[in-house]
């Protein structure tokens, strides 16, 4: 019971971190486009959080698998696989010299990722909510266990 709730709380925060990272990267790219940021700084900023983001996302994906949350696992799998592919091809970091040429594709890629994270966020939010509700329900009315019928 409590573990479930803790798990979702952790997921929730990881998700928030992922969202923040995506958002920050997008913001940096927009700043770069608007000339508020020079390419050196923008690429340093973005590149410094790319790997943490990948690791966090990968951790999330694997933890879903290990906790047997099939649906959530499949939901996060595509992005994790894509990250892995980028990393293996050594294309995960921004190329500072050609940053302006790649700007649009990079932005699009991060927009899509942001959208997926948002979706994930709502799902995780629901799970967290339900987990917490059941945690409290279970605590108050232990006989009432409708969780399985509702959510599984």
């Amino acid at each position, binding site marked *: 019971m409590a573990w479930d709730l803790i798990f979702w709380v952790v997921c929730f925060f990881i998700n928030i971190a992922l969202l923040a990272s995506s958002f920050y990267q997008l913001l940096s790219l927009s700043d770069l486009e608007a*000339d508020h940021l020079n*390419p*050196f700084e923008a*690429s340093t900023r973005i590149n410094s959080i790319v790997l943490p983001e990948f690791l966090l996302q990968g951790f999330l994906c694997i933890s879903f698998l290990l906790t047997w949350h099939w649906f959530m696992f499949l939901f996060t799998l595509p992005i994790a696989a894509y990250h892995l592919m980028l990393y293996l091809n*050594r294309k995960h970091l921004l*190329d500072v*010299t050609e*940053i302006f*040429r790649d700007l649009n594709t990079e932005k699009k890629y991060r927009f899509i990722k942001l959208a997926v994270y948002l979706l994930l966020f709502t799902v995780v939010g629901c799970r967290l909510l339900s987990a917490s509700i059941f945690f409290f329900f279970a605590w108050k009315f232990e006989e009432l266990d409708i969780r399985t019928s509702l959510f599984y």
Partner: protein
Amino acid sequence: MGTENPGHPNFPMRPPPGPFASAPPTMTPFSSSRPTPPIPPPPITSVPPAGGPYQQFPTSPFPSTAQSPPIRAPPEGQPPFQPRASQVSASSVSFPPQSQVPPVPMGSSPQSVIFSPSGVNVPQPPTGSLFPGPRPNIRPTFSPPDSSYSATKSTFQPPFPGYPSKKPAVSQAPSPFPAQQGSFMPPPPASSSPFSSQQGSYAPPPPVAAPLGYQSRGQMQHPSSAPPIGGIQSLTEDFSSLSLASLPGSIDPGCDHRTLPRPLDGDEEPSSFTEMYPMNCNPRYLRLTTSGIPSSQSLASRWHLTLGAVVCPLAEDPEGEEVPVINYISTGIIRCRRCRSYVNPYVTFTDAGRKWRCNICALLNDVPGDYFANLDATGRRIDLDQRPELLKGSVEFVAPTDYMNRPPMPPLYFFLIDVSLSAVRSGMIGSSLAQPQMMVISDLDDIFVPLPDDLLVNLSESRNVVETFLDSLPSMFQDNVNVESAFGPAVKAAFMVMSQLGGKLLIFQNTLPSLGVGRLKLRGDDLRAYGTDKEHLLRLPEGSFYKQMAADLTKYQIGVNVYAFSDKYTDIASLGTLAKYTGGQVYYYPNFQSSIHGEKLRHELVRDLTRETAWEAVMRIRCGKGIRCTSYHGNFMLKSTDLLALPTVDCDKAYAVQLSLEETLLTTQTVYLQAVLLYPLSGYTASCGERRIRVHTAAAPVVTDLGEMYRQADTGAIFSLFCRLAIEKTLTNKLEDARNSLQLRIVKALREYRNLYAVQHRLGSRMIYPDSLKFLCSYGLALSKSVPLKGGYADAQLDERCGAGFTMMALPVKRLLKLLYPSLIRIDEYLLKPSAQTDDFKNIMKRLPLVAESLDSRGLYLYDDGFRFVIWFGRMLSPDVAKNLLGADFAAELSKVQSLVNEAILVATRLLNRILLNMLFLFCWFLCISERLRPFLSALRHDEVVLNSPGSFMFPTQVILSEHDNEMSRRLMRILKKLRESDPSYYQLPYLVRQGEQPKEGLLLLVNLLEDQMGGTSGYVDWIMQIHRQVQQNT
């Protein structure tokens, strides 16, 4: 061409260029009967007056027979009668003014009509009108000299009406006038049109009504079929055409390669650009791919030649045309409040001079009090003539201090020399202790001694005062047998040292970096990679170190020039990245031997160090409302979306930009572009320490007609852009894809053009193209056969490919075109000419088409692509010539293979190699102690010529020859010198090749004869046919 192949019976096979389909019925009957009866009379009458003069010119033998043979165009592609139009000229064929007479008689006997002896195949169309023909002919005569070219061009145009459809009929005509050489030949039945349409192909749109007489140049005209004059003029065409139909019974693929347009005149700067807007900056600074900006996106999308511009901000000014410098420090520089563009000739002053309207964003700005001047009645400022910025398209403002982050730095040259290695070429492998060496040269006396220890472990002993270091360096590494190179750490160290000041880092690299960070693998030129998806990876820098390093160098205003020497794989793709993103340049000397290439290296290094260089510059291109710069191509790094960071920039660098329309419809009549280069002046000039802003402004009309865009096209700028796009494409795709996309662009462009005219005119199987793009196909072929794009694995070494790619990404338009279509000239006639008259270089500089046929085994030819000379000795060339040029000894050697000499020179080479290095060090030493480089450097220049005597290509033996004491040798030197002076940016090293000397001849020269079919690549004729076929598909 005519002169070269006098004896060739050459029948232009193409039908007359003009797509005039009128008057068909009359033609047919004449076709068979036409030749004899009517023709003779007119020529006879006309010939007498002109006959005398003609015969003076060997190239234009006019037989006095009835038929006046049309003269073939001279090699330059100029119309033969050009001279006439522009008074007498000394050029190849001159027509005496009398030649215009012929038409007159003809006019009087309309029946006979037809071929005027003026050689132009002038059809005298006018029936009944006596002098219509002649008059127009005369007109060009009076045209001012400078317009002679266009005037003559315009004459070519219009093919005769009714002509196209007539082709078959014409071919029957027994009296075709072979366009070739004057000699009259009976046309083989196969030739469809006796008159070569070569000239026709050059026809530009006639701005002026084309003179009647010339209208149907290249056409046979029958009198009775001739339409009225008015008709002719109205039918004036604005495109040129080539007939490519394959002819029945002919073996030839269907077109005569001699008549194809070739860029033998080199680059032609677009004239319309400056004519229309005289206050525009000179085209050497800025050229647009088309001077007609499309008015709508839909129109722009039909222009397949990419809309863009090529900017060479610091192009060398000829004497007397320097960019005026204006000092407005006190009043402040006048700029638009909104778009920040600079005041320029196209701004308009209103409100009695109190306001000015920005031409770029149309904002009304206030005129500051200090800058105020009243307007005269016409609205011009009364002080206009004292304001160069309001008169000239190119000006330089002295910028106030707040324009830059920091005061101008002293120029810093940093030499990073790879000494570990095969610089000595000993071939022995010793123990490995990396020895990256560094030298700091500044023309200040302060020297950067302190270096972070941890970075330069290898340098611990060398971190003394630089003088002592320099003194000891040559001896230190004299016996170095190290083959390892710690390039990465060395660059890093250099970066640390230079980051305070910025400057130029010159890297001399001889081996593959093998130690420390940035070490490279011998990924080699893998045959198996070609044709696969991995192919392009070889052309990309390995790992992220080089890109990151390049970015850091740029950030700290360090420009890198890479000099690479190795005979083995050095991964230029990676090393060159440093130069590419720092505004630098790659010099690649494959198989470097100081005895051979030392001269070249010295000249190019001297050039690199002495040319006017702007440091830590930034460039921005502002476009008028509605258009936008979308991408930039060249050696630089973008600092923000539209700001090019150029740590070093000089006159040998050009940048290309692609433009696109921002709005679906442009409402303005004119579009303005302003290229601004901001840089601190430093270096050797007196005004050292000033900041300058160089502003180039250009205006271009907005057009609504696609045809107009084509008419205003600029082939040079187009290919500069194409070349960069294609090279960039090779970095992400296969070579073949890059070539195909280039071809596709050309095909699309020509198809679109064809569609413009296909409806009005019956084009048949002719290929049409605007006069402005007559060289589209030849340069397209040249580009796809250029080193970065050509062939596959075996056709060029990977390093060579990448080196050429980096070079071509930075070349200004003129030099690029020269490299694409090099010049081939025959020089033996000039050398042997008895007269002492030596100054008429123009005459000898008659460029020949790059086909093997151009080479005559009795001749001596000079091939010049701007980077090297190849002197080709024909097999039958008189031995005296070789003896005179090379000296008796070498002449003898030239005729035999000598392995012993090879051996001897090998030894000498090793010594010389060292000497060369020493020279470099000394050189740096001089830099250290003297700010005044120029006298010293100019003293370095010798007039020696390095001659490559025959030997194996891979190890060419060379002899250094100075001028011999005979006239012939002096003349040759003079030619070489002259050619070198015309383009000082690279030093052309002469290579000697004997005819039939394999494989050297093939590698040096034959492979560069790009119009020939060779090793699976198509020749010029095939290429044209191929393009034509594709153009016709889906039309």
